[in-house]
């Protein structure tokens, strides 16, 4: 129920309402709260979407811990860590962008949006390098996959089972690939937000698209926060 305690006329077209107010909403607050709730619910669906992959990962990690550890060791934890830092910084620039909109700092807003996108592109670049490395090492699942004679961490006399390692890499590529896809969508979203900011569409009273775009971006960050230790750091002790 929206907040007015008095009956609101069916037509909410007061003297000077924000042109962004859609007319099936009674107030701007109702519209903003709806958009916010809508994005949070969408993020809930995304959690469950990735959740299925985490479930598969959890089960196979339990079954094939040694093989997974060997496979995990072969991906670059420093790059993964760097990417984590990149995304964390991008989340900061997002909240700073919103603060800039709230305080009418147009230049800062645009700067932070651009910076966010640069961080996103950096993330994708590092990811691309990682993928290329895996391709070169024949760790991409499929016909040319090979993972022979890789010792299991902590058990130097045992070799990892390539079939089980392939499952790790399948999950690695699907999970990080899906994440990267979401990142690309996020970049597209922020390009649009940047265009709107450039056009001066955001004010301290109205910057809802920034807020909900920010929510999406932070979610993509949170997924990576979990992917990093689970994929890269299974068994890193020497």
């Amino acid at each position, binding site marked *: 129920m929206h907040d007015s305690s008095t009956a609101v006329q069916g037509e909410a077209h007061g003297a000077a309402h924000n042109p962004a107010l859609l007319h099936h909403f009674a107030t701007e607050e109702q519209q903003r709260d709806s958009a916010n709730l809508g994005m949070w619910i969408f993020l809930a669906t995304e959690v469950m979407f990735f959740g299925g992959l985490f479930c598969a990962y959890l*089960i196979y990690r339990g079954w094939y811990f040694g093989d997974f550890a060997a496979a995990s060791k072969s991906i670059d934890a420093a790059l993964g*860590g760097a990417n984590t830092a990149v995304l*964390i910084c991008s989340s900061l620039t997002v*909240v700073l962008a919103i603060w800039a909109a709230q305080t009418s700092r147009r230049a800062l807003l645009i700067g932070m949006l651009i910076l966010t996108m640069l961080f996103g592109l950096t993330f994708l670049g590092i990811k691309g390098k990682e993928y290329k490395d895996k391709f070169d090492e024949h760790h991409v699942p499929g016909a040319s996959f090979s993972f022979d004679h890789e010792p299991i961490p902590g058990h130097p006399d045992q070799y990892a089972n390539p079939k089980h390692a392939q499952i790790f890499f399948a999950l690695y590529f699907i999970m990080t690939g899906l994440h990267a896809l979401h990142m690309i969508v996020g970049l597209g979203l922020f390009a649009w937000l940047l265009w709107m900011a450039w056009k001066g569409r955001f004010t301290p009273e109205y910057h809802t698209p920034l807020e909900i775009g920010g929510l999406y971006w932070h979610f993509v960050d*949170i997924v990576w926060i979990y992917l990093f230790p689970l994929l890269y*750091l299974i068994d890193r002790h020497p």
Partner: protein
Amino acid sequence: MSDHSKSSPLPTYFSVWIALLAGTLITYEVAKIDLGVFNAAVALIIATTKALLVALFFMHLKGASEKLLKLVVISTVFFLFILLALSMADYGTRLWS
């Protein structure tokens, strides 16, 4: 969303940012120490702390005027937990008899 707090949120944002980076570094370094089965637990605890920081402060869950958004988050996490836990009820007990 209601008005943000009157005082500047910037110190909070930067503190959270530093905490997140520190958490990442700690995760990376602790992974090199052999804690046996606790390696995974520590990594996930740190990850969850980071996720909570992002959700509460960057996504403004902490200042949300109504409990609904927190309910959405808690419900979602609960059902994800159900998926993982009840699946493990099968996988974890298959070898029991």
